[in-house]
């Protein structure tokens, strides 16, 4: 208990980095870079060997080339359909952002209300579970029927894809708020409102972020589905068109881009979660 006497030697001593420690810390980065390089080199060699038609598997270099030209050029103004990846990427990301924003706007309050009020929970839960378990792709024809091949239809599908993980996570967060934290707040005089603002909400915040994280994954599926089914713009449409025109390099480029976009968005929410709720960082992948 007593504070340390000044004469004692310092408890924290800086040590030199050994090769082993350096490897322990940064080794996984080297492995990942080497791993991916080998992957693309093997792909390149395999594709060039002629064992498989370039129609199905173009060399990795063609894919990167298509990606580079697609991202650095825009189509001339006035063209009916853009061949540039960048235009389609911005279109898809714009729709995704709008859809995710609306999904949060609906999903977070809905989940919080369901967790906080037993009557709202009872009334809403059958609909939430029914729609959450229904494969959203099955709804696409219905919305095309209702809204046509429009942005509205696409955004509706994104919202429907992303909103349920957000609702369910927020709901679960409220329901699983630790009883002892609530008891402590009550003992120290929290009003009913303070129980929500000072215990339930902060406790639920990391749950909501996980919900949004799952929502991003689902929303991205929604974007692609909506664009493949009905649209004349966006990455989903571009995949479809690349396949129709046997432009496999372009198709692989778009698939690769989707992986990058999806990983980036998910990593962003992970950082957000680690920043907002550092106590939940233990035992994470």
């Amino acid at each position: 208990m007593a504070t340390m006497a000044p004469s004692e030697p310092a408890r924290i001593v800086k040590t030199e980095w050994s090769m082993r420690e350096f490897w322990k810390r940064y080794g996984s980065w080297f492995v990942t870079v080497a791993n991916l390089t080998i992957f693309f080199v093997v792909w390149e060699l395999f594709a060039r060997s002629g064992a498989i038609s370039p129609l199905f598997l173009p060399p990795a270099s063609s894919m990167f080339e298509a990606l580079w030209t697609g991202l650095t050029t825009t189509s001339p103004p006035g063209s009916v359909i853009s061949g540039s990846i960048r235009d389609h990427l911005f279109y898809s990301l714009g729709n995704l952002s709008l859809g995710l924003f609306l999904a949060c706007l609906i999903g977070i309050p809905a989940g919080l209300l369901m967790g906080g009020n037993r009557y709202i929970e009872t009334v809403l839960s059958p609909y939430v579970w029914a729609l959450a378990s229904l494969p959203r792709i099955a709804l696409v024809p219905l919305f095309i029927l209702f809204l046509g091949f429009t942005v509205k239809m696409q955004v509706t599908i994104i919202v429907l894809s992303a909103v349920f993980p957000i609702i369910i996570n927020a709901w679960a967060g409220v329901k699983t708020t630790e009883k002892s934290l609530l008891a402590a707040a009550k003992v120290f005089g929290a009003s009913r409102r303070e129980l929500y603002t000072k215990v339930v909400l902060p406790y639920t915040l990391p749950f909501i972020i996980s919900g949004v994280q799952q929502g991003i994954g689902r929303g991205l599926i929604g974007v692609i589905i909506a664009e493949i089914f009905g649209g004349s713009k966006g990455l989903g449409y571009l995949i479809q068109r690349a396949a129709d025109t046997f432009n496999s390099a372009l198709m692989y480029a778009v698939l690769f881009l989707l992986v990058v976009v999806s990983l980036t968005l998910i990593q962003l929410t992970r950082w957000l979660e680690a920043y907002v709720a550092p106590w939940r960082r233990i035992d994470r992948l």
Partner: protein
Amino acid sequence: MRVAEADVGRTAAAPTIAAGPQDSAPVIVSKNLTVGYELHRERQRLTALRDISLTVNRGEFVVLVGPSGCGKTTFINAISGLVKPWEGSIEVNGRPVTGPGPDRAMVFQDYALMPWRTVESNIRMPFEMQKLGLSQKEMDERVRRYIDLVDLTGFENSFPYELSGGMKQRVGIARALVSEPDILLADEPFAAIDAMTREAMQSELERFVTNTRQTVVFITHSIDEAVTLGDRVVVISYRPGRIKEIVNVNLPRPRFDYDVKMLPEYGELRDHIWRLVKDEALQTARGAK
């Protein structure tokens, strides 16, 4: 804990040796209290405590012991106002308990610290929720004083997940004491703390309590802890809990300074309480319902 600095702000300057209910001003009066829980799903009412009559006087340290599930926690919850009596009554300072209030504070077994708040912010929490009529300066000063009391100076900005169990419970104790409540309720506060730290914390708590004449109701499973800390030990029987016997512990304080564990009376008291709870403890261990 640094007690000499701590009791500056307290009103009662106490002699160092104090034992037993010598003030005899009743603070908590429980009359024929019966209380329990409604199990809505099973449509059952579970009586946790039956017919508890107990008076706790100012400055007294009362320890409740009994087998798991005997309703000790329910009794503390009834005092704190978290559960309402079914029958009988419970009064604090002459007024029936209707809900939690700033005159009572609690220390929890699992610490119950808000993980998103720093040490300092956790300890400040009671001030945010209770209107105590203190100025900002007084509150800051008190928070600082109690952080110092539990020896957490330097850890103000740490989060609970960065602390050891013993340190977490120090935060819990400081949070409970910061509003300087009449009654300190403690629900197995040291149960999850390793044996050596536990002993140190018991001794610190006893010093603080002896110096400030703090009224304490303390739950434990440990007979040793009960005898080293309590002025009276209330032995509660298994479900539904009733008072089996109240044992007076007239050992000199501070008990850690007097090394009371070496006294023959200590062994006798310990033995006596063990004999009271033995049968029921064994029954609980066998899983009898």
